[in-house]
């Protein structure tokens, strides 16, 4: 068997923009993936799985500066002698964050762009595009632009592009995240049917897909570790903290007061395609309740309106019918803004100041009734609780740290209710459960949006789902 991918003695360190140099991300990392093999590389956060994927694609350190040493060969060719555009049919990459890969103005145009680069005829492109759109349930969205798509739909677009190009090596970074069960199954089928070499990077082990992979590896201590599966999974759970007890199990809540959030006869409407050509998407919510101290999960297919409903609950969007009540009192959008904390999936939209300390104190300092010394005390306490360093710069912190900072900001706001949009996406279970426990400890009610049924099971509580445009309690 010949190797699709061969990495030997790879070392990489990101360029430091501060006084202190960065620690190396990889040191003497070796990896060999045989042709047609499907490999799962488990990697807890900060271990560099996305960086490794980008190095293999030839875009790091080119666009993400750092010092790279070692040898990488793709299908026998030395990567250092190739340009990333030459790898189009060799190696295809699906990012953990689909939004960063969109370049065209429509879904159809997005799939067409790489096919145009390959110089294919219009007929061939049309055949491939139609087939891939149909396979990934995107035919009706062919004219939609990225902004109109849900997280799962974006991921499906990237997978459709991958299928349309048909590269020999598929590099997939957290590919099952954002996908609902139907599309997870479809992805699994695709990986089996295509018979390509596949490398999947994941920060969580999905037992349901265990048989999909020929080998499971671990990225830890700056290198790839291969060992017997059970031992490897135990080590992975330990590194990610998933072998620790569920922090919510032993949690004592301090319920100072009890509240209830309720949405009655609400109609959530979202313009699917801007302009006049398409009908808006509608979700009916007859009755939704969330009580203090409760953790309620919300699941549903991609694009079914989970995020749209969340936006309405926290007053960012207006309901077309019905209303949202807090303790039986109808709430205006402004009042909802101030009572419901909504942690966006992407923390970068919610943190913006130069230091952690400024970030945490921003809201508190605007409240005249809180003394400066009290602000300092609360900020320090929150930083300790969420394991943050006050002097750190948020924009250069790792993803889980930014996520923790985002949660700490809301913790200090002390809202009676929180909506956590796919909190578990790209976090270990333990890290995600710890954040939930922290936010809940003062009795806040939590609505947790997730696609991961295993994660949802860690949270014992009521569950809502969306079926055929209706929100129903399971």
């Amino acid at each position: 068997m010949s190797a699709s991918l061969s990495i030997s003695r790879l070392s990489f360190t990101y360029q430091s923009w501060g006084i202190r140099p960065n620690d190396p991300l990889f040191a003497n990392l070796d990896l060999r993936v045989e042709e047609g093999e499907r490999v799962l590389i488990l990697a807890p956060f900060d271990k560099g799985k996305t960086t490794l994927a980008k190095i293999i694609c030839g875009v790091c350190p080119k666009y993400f500066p750092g010092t790279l040493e070692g040898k990488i060969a793709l299908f026998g060719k030395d990567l250092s002698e190739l340009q990333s555009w030459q790898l189009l049919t060799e190696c295809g990459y699906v990012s953990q964050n689909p939004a960063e890969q969109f370049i065209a103005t429509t879904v159809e145009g997005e799939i067409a762009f790489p096919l145009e680069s390959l110089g294919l005829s219009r007929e061939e492109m049309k055949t491939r595009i139609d087939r891939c759109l149909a396979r990934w349930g995107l035919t009706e969205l062919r004219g939609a632009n990225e902004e109109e798509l849900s997280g799962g739909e974006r991921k499906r677009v990237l997978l459709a592009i991958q299928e349309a190009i048909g590269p020999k090596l598929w590099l997939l970074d957290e590919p099952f995240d954002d996908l609902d069960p139907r599309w997870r199954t479809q992805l699994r089928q695709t990986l089996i049917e295509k018979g390509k070499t596949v490398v999947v990077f994941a920060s969580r082990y999905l037992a349901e897909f265990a048989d999909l992979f020929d080998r499971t590896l671990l990225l830890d201590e700056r290198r790839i570790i291969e060992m017997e599966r059970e031992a490897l999974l135990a080590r992975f759970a330990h590194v990610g903290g998933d072998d620790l007890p569920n922090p919510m199990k032993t949690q004592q809540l301090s319920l100072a007061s009890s509240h209830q959030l309720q949405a009655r006869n609400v109609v959530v409407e979202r313009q699917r395609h801007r302009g006049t050509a398409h009908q808006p998407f509608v979700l009916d919510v007859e009755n939704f309740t969330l009580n203090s101290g409760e953790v309620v999960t919300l699941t549903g297919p991609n694009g079914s309106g989970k995020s749209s409903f969340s936006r309405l609950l926290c007053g960012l969007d207006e309901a077309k019918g019905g209303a949202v009540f807090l303790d039986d009192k109808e709430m205006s959008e402004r009042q909802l803004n101030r009572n419901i904390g909504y942690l966006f999936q992407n923390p970068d939209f919610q943190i913006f100041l130069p230091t952690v300390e400024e970030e945490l104190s921003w809201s508190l300092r605007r409240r005249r009734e809180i003394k400066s010394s009290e602000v300092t005390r609360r900020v320090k306490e929150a930083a300790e609780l969420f394991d943050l360093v006050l002097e750190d710069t948020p924009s250069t912190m790792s993803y889980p740290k930014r996520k923790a900072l985002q949660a700490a900001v809301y913790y200090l706001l002390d809202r009676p209710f929180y909506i956590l949009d796919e909190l578990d996406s790209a976090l270990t279970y333990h890290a995600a459960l710890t954040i939930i426990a922290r936010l809940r400890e003062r009795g806040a009610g939590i609505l947790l949006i997730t696609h991961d049924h295993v994660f949802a099971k860690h949270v014992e509580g009521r569950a809502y789902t969306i079926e055929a445009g209706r929100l129903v309690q399971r």
Partner: protein
Amino acid sequence: MNISTYISGRGWLYRLDPRAKILLMLLLCVFFFLPISLAGLLITVALIVVVGWHNTGKRNVWAVFRSILPMLIFMVIFSPFSGRGGTPLVQIRSFTLLTKEGALQTLRLAGRFIGITYVCTLLFATTVMGEVILALRFWRLPYKAALVITLSFTYIPFIAESFDRISESHRLRQAGPDERKNYIQRLKDLMPTLTSVLVVALRSIPNLAMSLEMRGLGRDEKRTSYHSLDSYTRLFTDLLISIIMVTLLWLIFKA
């Protein structure tokens, strides 16, 4: 990176040949700088806004206006100071704060700015990126230059979109129900929002470059095009209409 600008629709602007649309855009941009009456300029801008409303919907028209609003406010606040000669309108003792000429000049500047913004955004809102590139290539622009122009223009809505999302997140981080903000506080709040937008925009640059290369931009093969302009069969008529429209505006509104 989100660079979505196209809005699906069926209005007449969608049916206008993209090659003619580009010519119309250029001619209108030139028209705004010709010696025309202020009323004529403002009427033309209003007409363009109405056309945009009819073709792409009021939401888009409002979104475009909102995205340029901060710039317009700066323009309206500061540019009258640069023209203090003429008939005084506002005076503090002997110091002239605003003159009639300064106000009119500001109005003209704002009109041009709004007009050019709408003309450019309407081109990209009613034409898919692939067709814009083909149309630019028809006007003898190399592929990469056409792509750069398209991406540059579509970067504006990306920034506007980021601004909206970040503003929303800031709204959710307001301290409490008792908090009231005056105008100075609101203006101060703009700074972290703009900083965040800048950070998001800067971060998107390597991602965009990475994505373009990963999608094969730069390969040796001759690039083909999925989109075609074959469905536009009235190129000559559309070009003629574009020229006639701008000529008529010039004849009616010339100073």
